[in-house]
């Protein structure tokens, strides 16, 4: 799929593109909900990452409710005469259900290259604690 304004010409790598269509990654249904989210955890934190290209931090409203994280925002379309429009525009909202209690005061959010990362530290009382037992 070459973006073409008006000139027709032979596409040298057209077969390549056809192959790519078949080899789409498994998350190809990512248009189902916007923005696409990754949810992960390690021993210390939960991480929620979202692809929100073009957003500034003050375009986003991130709310931590009792057991859910709410990400709201709006993508505004560019102004002009459109030849092609594939980028989503409009208001969006996603709710993430948190599976463990988090330390609400230490939740951080950052935006790098259009990817939002929300880091939610797990509450102290649910972290695995290692107790060393002396064997005599």
């Amino acid at each position: 799929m070459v973006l073409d304004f008006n000139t027709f010409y032979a596409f040298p790598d057209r077969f390549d593109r056809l192959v790519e269509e078949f080899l789409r990654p498994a998350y190809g249904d990512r248009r189902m909900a916007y923005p696409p989210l990754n949810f992960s955890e390690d021993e210390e934190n939960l991480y929620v990452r979202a692809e929100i290209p073009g957003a500034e931090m003050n375009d986003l409203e991130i709310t931590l409710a009792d057991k859910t994280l709410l990400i709201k925002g709006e993508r505004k379309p560019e102004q002009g005469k459109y030849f092609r429009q594939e980028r989503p525009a409009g208001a969006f909202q996603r709710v993430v259900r948190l599976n463990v209690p988090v330390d609400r005061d230490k939740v951080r959010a950052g935006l790098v290259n259009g990817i939002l990362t929300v880091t939610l530290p797990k509450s102290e009382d649910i972290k695995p604690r290692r107790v060393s037992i002396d064997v005599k």
Partner: protein
Amino acid sequence: MNENKPEEKSLPALRPSTDILERADGYWVYMDMPGVDRKDLVLDLRESELAVSGKTSVMASDKERFLEVQFGSGEYRQTIALSDLVNRAGIKATLKNGVLELFLPKVEQIKPRRIEITAD
């Protein structure tokens, strides 16, 4: 034209969502390339096309376990055919917050000249 190196094959190819629009001063192209850092963006101006590619930076650490994955790392690739309407020397590119903005100015003397025919 197909100059993919072997290591590039290991990353899944992603096609950036693209807007193309026209304003009075020229054409504006916007591509969503979330996760791509400026240093990883490659713009290749060829004879009749502008090839864009960019690899995403890895954000997660090795210790993380993923419970839900709806996007991943990869290499964004897109090619724009440049028409004769575009002034190639004036192309500008800006990458901000994961969106690549390309400005393709119009060539000045593109307006078709109309020849008036007057009958005696």
